[in-house]
């Protein structure tokens, strides 16, 4: 495997697909669809190949040597003069135990979302081209180890997403699309400023011994790479580092979305077409929490520790607020959207604990939420395709009419509630184990557990209103799932149940890296500073 640019392959494969689609004719709708399916299929295979070659004992996080599938090339180099240091940016990709699950998730969700895109009818060529571009953006974020590259991929997704919601969305699509765009850009411009600040603070020593400013994330994690008077240097007594942390956190929090920056999410979800909702909930939201784990935590461990209570607090607010609002929804899709807000709260809570259990739970929850919520949105999509409405009170007794569909619904709903033997249970349990064990946030953890109860409340109530009871005669002619829909639900259900029964399958991937991260945050900087 060594030397083969597998990460570039998995990242840029969709761009290749996009180029192929550009050369196809508008009328070749089916060819376009199969091309996309093939590309995302290959991407999935490549991701699985990566998993098979993955070294479970490699740390990653801050140590370049223990990252896997590394690709590092000089991308931009401009020799310096006295007033302008050498400009050097690397094309630097690598994977560790935290990004591996995300890569798998991206590949799986993209593949499923392609299947779910089958009945898109409007300008198919544009849709799939943008879809693939979005895929590249997502994958790129998870494999980048250079802040500049990370930022480019991060921003690369905005435009395709804007169009995918704006062109193929529902009645208020224009509003939802621009709201999504402006919110995210608002967050990312702050990220840009922090990125520049870090660039001017951190150095990297080149092979010939010269020190140059760098965007290399791993270099930024080592305090010895900071000069004493650097703007964001840990040795700089000013509170700029604190402000920068907050600014960066806001950038990520908007994407999660963390209360009070969540208001774009329900709009975007309700208006987006089903496959885009699947992508949005399945992958895009994870980028926020992934960014915090990959960038905020290891680069600013000192401040992370100061703020852990606040992160946990916002996690708790997310969990409870999301759940309460979900209870009040009359629109099926909006309910799922708010349940997402609630479930991402668990990720925040787990991360805030700074324990191995908590952060493993958080990363695992990111993966599980990705698969489970993808299923939930597909479930809504199935019903909406057939009935063209999503009102929770307009249905009833669908389980009679569509028994197989109802079966998958039950799996997804119970996984979302966190029933034992489903993947959601394990991750939520770990989150609570982690957060409860830390004295500082124990109260928040206890309060958050109310969210499970509320979650069961809105999920079961929905199950009852839509699927149980007497069949509403209006829907007596709804058909059950077809083969394509089977293909979407079966793999996801298998994953959800498999990881519920055998969670180590996923946890083993991340354990080493999560341990490293926890150690780094808890005492990494201390060694140098005190």
């Amino acid at each position, binding site marked *: 495997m060594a030397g083969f640019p597998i990460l570039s392959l998995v990242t840029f494969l969709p761009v290749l697909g996009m180029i192929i689609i550009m050369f196809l004719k508008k009328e070749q709708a089916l060819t376009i669809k199969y091309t996309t399916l093939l590309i995302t299929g290959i991407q999935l295979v490549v991701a699985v190949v990566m998993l098979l070659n993955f070294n479970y004992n490699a740390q990653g996080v801050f140590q370049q040597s223990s990252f896997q599938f590394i690709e590092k090339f000089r*991308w*931009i*180099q*401009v020799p310096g*003069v*006295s*007033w*302008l240091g050498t*400009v050097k940016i690397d094309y630097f990709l690598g994977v560790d135990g935290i990004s591996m699950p995300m890569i798998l998730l991206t590949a799986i969700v993209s593949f499923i979302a392609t299947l779910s895109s089958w009945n898109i009818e409007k*300008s198919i060529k544009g849709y799939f081209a943008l879809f693939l571009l979005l895929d590249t953006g997502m994958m790129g974020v998870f494999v980048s180890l250079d802040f500049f590259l990370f*930022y*480019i991929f991060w*921003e*690369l997704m*905005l*435009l395709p997403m*804007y*169009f995918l919601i*704006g*062109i193929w969305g529902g009645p208020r*699509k*224009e509003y939802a*699309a*621009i709201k999504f*765009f*402006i919110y995210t*850009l*608002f967050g990312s*411009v*702050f990220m*840009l*400023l922090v990125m*520049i*600040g870090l*660039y*001017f603070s951190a150095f990297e020593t080149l092979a010939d011994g010269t020190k140059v400013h760098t965007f290399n994330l791993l270099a930024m994690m080592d305090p010895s790479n900071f000069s004493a008077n650097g*703007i964001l240097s840990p040795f700089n007594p000013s509170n*700029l580092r604190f402000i920068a942390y907050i600014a960066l956190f806001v950038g990520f929090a908007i994407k999660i979305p963390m209360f009070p920056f969540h208001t774009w999410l329900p709009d975007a979800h309700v208006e987006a077409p089903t496959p885009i909702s699947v992508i949005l909930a399945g992958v895009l939201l994870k980028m926020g929490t992934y960014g915090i784990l990959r960038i905020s935590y290891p680069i600013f461990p000192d401040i992370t520790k100061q703020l852990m209570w606040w992160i946990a607090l916002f996690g708790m607010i997310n969990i409870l607020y999301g759940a309460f609002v979900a209870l009040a929804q009359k629109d099926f899709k909006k309910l799922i959207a708010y349940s997402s807000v609630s479930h991402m709260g668990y990720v925040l809570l787990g991360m805030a604990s700074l324990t191995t259990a908590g952060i493993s739970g958080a990363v695992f929850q990111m993966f599980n939420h990705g698969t489970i919520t993808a299923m939930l949105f597909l479930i809504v999509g199935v019903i909406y395709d057939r009935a063209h409405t999503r009102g929770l009170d307009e249905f009833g007794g669908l389980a009679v009419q569509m028994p197989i569909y109802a079966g998958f619904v039950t799996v997804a709903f119970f996984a979302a509630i966190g029933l034992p033997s489903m993947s959601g249970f394990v991750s939520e349990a770990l989150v609570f184990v982690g957060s409860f064990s830390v004295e500082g946030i124990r109260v928040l953890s206890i309060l958050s557990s109310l969210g499970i109860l509320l979650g069961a409340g809105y999920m079961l109530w929905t199950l009852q209103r839509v699927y149980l009871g007497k069949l509403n005669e209006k829907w007596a002619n709804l058909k059950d799932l077809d083969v394509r829909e089977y293909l979407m639900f079966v793999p996801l259900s298998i994953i959800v149940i498999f990881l519920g029964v055998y969670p180590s399958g996923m946890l083993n991937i991340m354990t080493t890296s999560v341990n490293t991260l926890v150690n780094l945050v808890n005492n990494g900087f201390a060694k140098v500073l005190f």
Partner: protein
Amino acid sequence: MDVSNIIESLKLIKPEIAVSASLILVLIFDLIFHKDKKLIPYVALLGLFATGYFVIHQFGTTGFGFATKSTFKAFGMVTVDSFGTFFKLLILISAVLVLFFSSFSDEIKKTTDRLGEYYVLIFGMILGMFLMVSATDFLLIYLSMELLSLSSYVLAGFTKLRDRNSEASLKYVIYGSVSSGLMLFGISIIYGLTGSTNLYVINSLIQSPQINVLALSFALILVMAGMGFKISAAPFHFWTPDVYEGSPITITAFLSVASKAAGFGLLIRFIKTGFAAMTLNNGYWMLNPIFDWKLIIVILAILTMTLGNFSALWQNNLKRMLAYSSIAHAGYLLLGLAVFSNQGIAAILIYFFVYMLMNLGAFLIVMLIADKLGSEDVDDYDGLGYTSPFLGISLAVFLVSLTGLPPTAGFIGKLYIFSALIDAKMFVVAVIGVLNSVVSLYYYIRVLKHMYLVKPKIQPVEIIPGLSQKFLVLLLVVPVLFFGIYFSPIVELAKNCVVLLGF
């Protein structure tokens, strides 16, 4: 001033001589072949290429030309350095592009009988701009600005097709003459205070403690009015939307890029030559504390970009919207100046190069669409992205780049401006800057919304650009994308062109 000095100096202004020669050539050509105007653009193009040859040869050359007194031989009226040459190249490239735009433009085609004058006036503008970016004497500064202004006043109303052409021209004349009058007044005060019009001489004289600070500050603010007018910085920007909307698109494009570049070149050189005591080793300038340039420029910058962006939000006419957007961009560029360091100037040069590509590109597409649609109203763009995919995608690239999103070149420009600010620890200003770019997203994306998201009320017209038009568009789209991903060349170029001959 002796003859040998003049001859030596002439060697330094070869590009200017080439422009003048081309101007005369076009004029003569127009007189001889007054029946057939088709050849004139070719003659003009030839002239531009000849000029380009001399400009490129001038890279690396430094020197002072036309010293006023033999005792001050080193301090001439004209200063040739890489900084000025960079701006000359920028002006020249945009002139070449505008020349191609003109050959496609329907507006210009309708006035073929006056085509000779059109190109003569464009050469007049170029000459004015070339002199502006290398002038280090108030006399030449004023004259070159007037040369540029007078040519552009006429060009703004050149087509005389609609009322708004004449309106644009008249407004331009009125605003222009007021601001140049103010500037002249400021110059006369400075002359009264120092007894010299040469910036180098003024620089050394105003360091003396006897200088009247109040009078000097007053004079400098008046001079800023003149320069602020040229770069359309708030609060001297009121002419911009009307003139940009009323002028032929080719001229609007030229004004928005080249004229602004010349204004910035002049402003930067004026401040550096007139007020910098020295450049520190880390790139920061030591400015004469007699006048708080930093405060003035920061205020101007914030005012300019905020006003530009917020006014652009309400515009339906695309030319008008781009006019406000160009005001906002002047604000970002002023941010780069506000740092008063080589880093800031390098950022300005990078930004200008990128801005030239994306802004000219946007104007080109608007022109191609307006020629078919007869309208620049954003509501008429509904559904255009589907019927004219090539133009739609290209315009999308330019607008995204103007917003400053990666992976387009516009992002690189913004990156360097904000890097310069962060490096100078001007955090609050940087935050205001990035928030402004979030605001700008709304009106740029609004055009895309109309092209792709809004259902058209009537079947949109299909616009198929010709092969040469497509080629020209690609000539701008490809670099915008390429430099967004691989920007070493522009950084390298800008880094080498920061050299300003002075203190």
